[in-house]
């Protein structure tokens, strides 16, 4: 599929950044500062003479890493809380639900900014903040899944065997909720990469010493860059758009394969139209 191809290309080029780029991303070369794209420097150079192509490659490494780690952690929080709330119910359930509502009331970027004020900047802080502010969707998915699963016969059988709650939750119920979790994981990666770009563009994300796609875009804070050095922000942004589109495609594809219930409602789809749907992509982003 298209999505996997895109992701494969981006990830391998990020891994093999040293071999592909040919330049050190932090090497400042005063002789070739602010050059437009040429065969020497595929994507041009910035005001300090650093090669943009290699910075985009290395930036991809960090951006993807942040997106994947944050998404994993956020999903972990959401899954654990969702499993507990869904299986045990009661006061704990109400508490977690209220908590998730509380977090969901704020627009994500504003919430992230509030946390940045209290925790400060830095790669690990960004990841932690993203995880704290992005667990709610997974939590709700897992919780509702658990609510319906816990009434199933096999769970009753487990209880009759006298298995502990922990064992029932993690060994028997969790594997059955894996597919929505995987879909949420994929889609969150896309959301976090865009969020990182926005945060770093504002100068409030990852420190400038670590190249990320967002930090590269932060160069466009200066009007002169927007006006004259278009290659400084067009290429990193293109990288983001391509990668995120790819991730979204995969997310949609996975949803269609893993979770037949969530397919577009009301459409009597043939195999061909389902495939088409998959390729074009039909994801809702709750904004």
């Amino acid at each position: 599929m298209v999505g996997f191809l895109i992701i494969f290309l981006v990830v391998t080029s990020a891994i093999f950044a040293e071999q592909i780029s040919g330049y050190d991303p932090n090497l400042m070369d005063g002789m070739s500062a602010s050059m437009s794209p040429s065969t020497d420097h595929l994507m041009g150079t910035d005001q300090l003479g650093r090669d943009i192509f290699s910075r985009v490659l290395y930036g991809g490494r960090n951006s993807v890493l942040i997106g994947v780690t944050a998404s994993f952690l956020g999903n972990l929080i959401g899954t654990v809380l969702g499993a507990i709330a869904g299986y045990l119910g009661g006061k704990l359930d109400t508490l977690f639900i209220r908590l998730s509502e509380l977090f969901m009331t704020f627009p994500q970027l504003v919430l992230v900014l509030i946390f940045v004020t209290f925790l400060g900047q830095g790669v690990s802080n960004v990841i932690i903040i993203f995880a704290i502010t992005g667990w709610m969707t997974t939590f709700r998915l897992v919780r509702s899944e658990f609510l319906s699963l816990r009434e199933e016969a096999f769970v009753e059988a487990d209880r009759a065997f006298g298995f502990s709650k922990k064992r029932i939750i993690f060994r028997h119920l969790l594997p059955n909720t894996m597919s929505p979790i995987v879909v949420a994981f994929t889609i969150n990666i896309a959301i976090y990469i865009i969020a990182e770009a926005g945060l770093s563009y504002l100068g409030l994300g990852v420190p400038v010493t670590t190249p990320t796609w967002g930090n590269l875009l932060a160069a466009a804070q200066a009007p002169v860059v927007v006006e004259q050095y278009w290659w400084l922000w067009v290429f990193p942004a293109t990288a983001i758009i391509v990668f995120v589109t790819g991730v979204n495609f995969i997310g949609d594809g996975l949803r269609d394969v893993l979770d037949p219930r969530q397919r577009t409602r009301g459409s009597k789809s043939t195999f061909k139209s389902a495939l088409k749907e998959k390729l074009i992509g039909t994801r809702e982003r709750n904004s």
Partner: protein
Amino acid sequence: MIPMAFSISAIIFFASRLSPIDPLNSLISPDAAADPTNLAILKERLGFNDPIIVQYFNWLMEMFKGNFGYSIQSGQPISEILALRMPATLELVLAALIISTTLALLIGLIAGANRGGLTDKTSRALAAVGISVPDFFIGLALLNVLAYRLSWFPTGQRISPGQETFLDRLPHLVLPVATLSIAMLAVLIRYTRNSVLDTINRDFVKTARSKGLPEWKVMWSHVFRNSLGPVMVLIAFRLPLLVGGAVLVEAVFQWPGIGDTIVEAVTVSDYPVIMVVSLLIAVAILFASFLVDIAKSILDPRVRLGATTE
């Protein structure tokens, strides 16, 4: 809604107490702070020695009276800052909301009505890409092409020196509003389309058609009206933007709105400002969800406020 507002205000208040910055430092000159008795007097007078619960309710009372506190950075009253910034944000977000909603409903209806048609295909492809584009990138692209290369529009900010009337400001408004509208469009179009598709296959639409109603009337008074519900919810949840501002778009265009205020405040850890703004946003969101409930009951008579059935 009311208990939620109180718990959010409590969380914001106690979080600010945990913050490492001591607000006293910005209130007292270093010379005076050298003498601990001065600090103690100030603390007593400002109520820092009261139990924290009492402090919280005092703070809440002041908020209700309209005293939002002072910015650490500039010493300005926060209510003054808000009064200065709020009109800019309102102008920007309101215009974008109106434009994007009108366009999205129109395109979504056409796309949904002619499933698989040209409008449908184009809008879906655009929506798929649109979701993956960071909104500030749209702003940067528009700036580069329309403002710098073609110089059709000013490159940012709200007012040029010497131009005061609304007509003078209008050109400044075009690009930010366009950016924000485009950013909002993708999701909204897709949502409208799916909602229209949902309704179009219902039985009552078939009934309307078999009665021999003209197609536009079926579309307008049966399909469109009934598919508005879920779309309304999405729109209502964007209303808080009116208070919170569009952080990234405002940053790109140096638009002096609330979003810009938030970024400034976070950059210098001006947490009284952040507290007040986030509290306002929270209240706005709670109010919006209240509006959603009302709008739902108007659109759909089956939903009754306060009904116990779910």
